[in-house]
């Protein structure tokens, strides 16, 4: 998905115009959502927060270890949606537990302890 710079709607990759405002776009006029996702919401373009009817939401400040209301228990400085300790590098939004990890780049993107996908 891309983001239309004219109206902020999502633009599927196969579309040559924004479905919402019909603005024609080229790569120079769009913001690539992929990079946005990498910077803000996680390395995978398919990342999402599961939800269901009758469910409750996950507040980013909430820590499942039971420190309810203890906001100091979870920090997310790079705003990638992952709190320490699940984020082994909280200065880089592309690095967190479960992130895509390309072997050979020398970076443990998925916090598995090694460069490349965990076995």
């Amino acid at each position, binding site marked *: *998905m891309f*983001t239309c710079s004219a*109206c*902020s*709607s*999502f633009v*599927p990759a*196969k*579309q040559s115009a924004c*479905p*919402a405002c019909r603005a024609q776009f080229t790569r120079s006029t769009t913001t690539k*959502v992929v990079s*946005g*996702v990498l910077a*803000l*919401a*996680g390395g*995978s373009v*398919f*990342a*999402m*927060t*599961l*939800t*269901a*009817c*009758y*469910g*409750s*939401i*996950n*507040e*980013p*400040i*909430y*820590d*499942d270890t*039971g420190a*309810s*209301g203890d906001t100091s228990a*979870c920090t*997310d400085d790079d*705003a*990638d*949606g*992952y*709190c320490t300790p*699940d984020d082994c590098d909280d200065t880089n939004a592309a690095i*967190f*537990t*479960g992130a*895509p990890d390309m072997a050979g780049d020398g970076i443990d993107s998925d916090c598995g302890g090694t460069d490349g996908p965990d076995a």
Partner: protein
Amino acid sequence: MSGLSRRRLDVVNTTAHPRYVVWELTLRCDHACTHCGSRAGVARETELSTEQALGVVAELAAMGTQELVLIGGEAYLHEGFLSIIEALRSHGITPVMTTGGRGIDLSLAQQMHAAGMQRVSVSIDGLAAIHDRMRARKGSFEGTLQALAAIRQAGMVAQANTNLNRLNIGDLEGLYEVLLANGVRGWQVQLTSPLGRAADRPDMLFQPFDLLDVLPRVAALKERGFRDGMMIMPGNNLGYFGPEEALLRTPVKGGSDHFQGCQAGRFVMGIESDGAVKGCPSLQTQHYVGGYASTTPIADIWNDASELAFARARTVEEDLWGFCQQCPYAETCMGGCSFTAHGFFGRAGNNPYCHFRAADHQRRGLRERLIATDAASGRPFDHGLFEIVVEPFDAPLERAPAGEPSLAKIGRKPKRMDPERAGA
């Protein structure tokens, strides 16, 4: 693993497993809400015993469940309620709960917390008058506030969830203020769908073009929520792909998440109190139960039942129809929320509740209007049928104004009226 990351994952490259489960512990309830999809009130004829339920917990843990929402009816009316919370916790599954809150006093809240309950979402569907009307009980609203207080006092996180429809939409912004003032910092909002008792009340339901008003208002509240410390997230049937999509779907400010299609049977599972296993708690029982946990291992149901696999390998050409098949977002959205679409037309794949769809019609000077045709059957998680009319956007329309109490009246009697489940 942090609370956020337990439910955040790559939905394309992760093997399907029931990571997030919603479990109706009993259908017995101390409310008879006008919009209840399960027509809750009395227990089902056969419900899982505590011993059976503890077995379910073990099975789910083995399958990789990370979080489980106990619902009903009212989950606390099941005799094994606290034991099941303890078992979930001991198996490494985060227990949470959704409740009407009527029976939650400080004593019960403390017991829940001691057993391992982490957070509780109280269903609050408007300000006092409208909430009590929807819940069919005078004083219900005050009860929810007392429940919120008890939950917080006991040391748990108090949240809220709201079903939006024509009856309560006028209370949306006022309810935000009330929730904020009562310590709620997490709020899930979704649309009332034509399921169960809501299917008997078609006038209560939104028309598709109402989303042109509703979605921007929810988005505005989400912006306020980021400033006020209130996290608002949409349920799966609130959307899709309007200009506010990224704002609504991302739990962090400035993110770019969007709807990724129905996750029923992929990473979500629903269990009814008699052990019926579905891909999602709201899916219509008649069409989507893959088996019963009382007689079949849940893993076998999950892996082998076609009723749970429908969302795992769909195509635009085979599984979508109507507007959704031609939509530019078809491949990603795949018709939005499956149970909502099925509730209108008896099959998924064409969902009139869509912001992009409504806006696209408006751009062409048109709107879609839903007309109720067949009545629902009168059983839990049933549905009626509707037809769509496409008409000029400014065509005359006679309907009761939003907020009018008469919207809560039964407008289409179910085929089988069970007095114990009929509600108000």
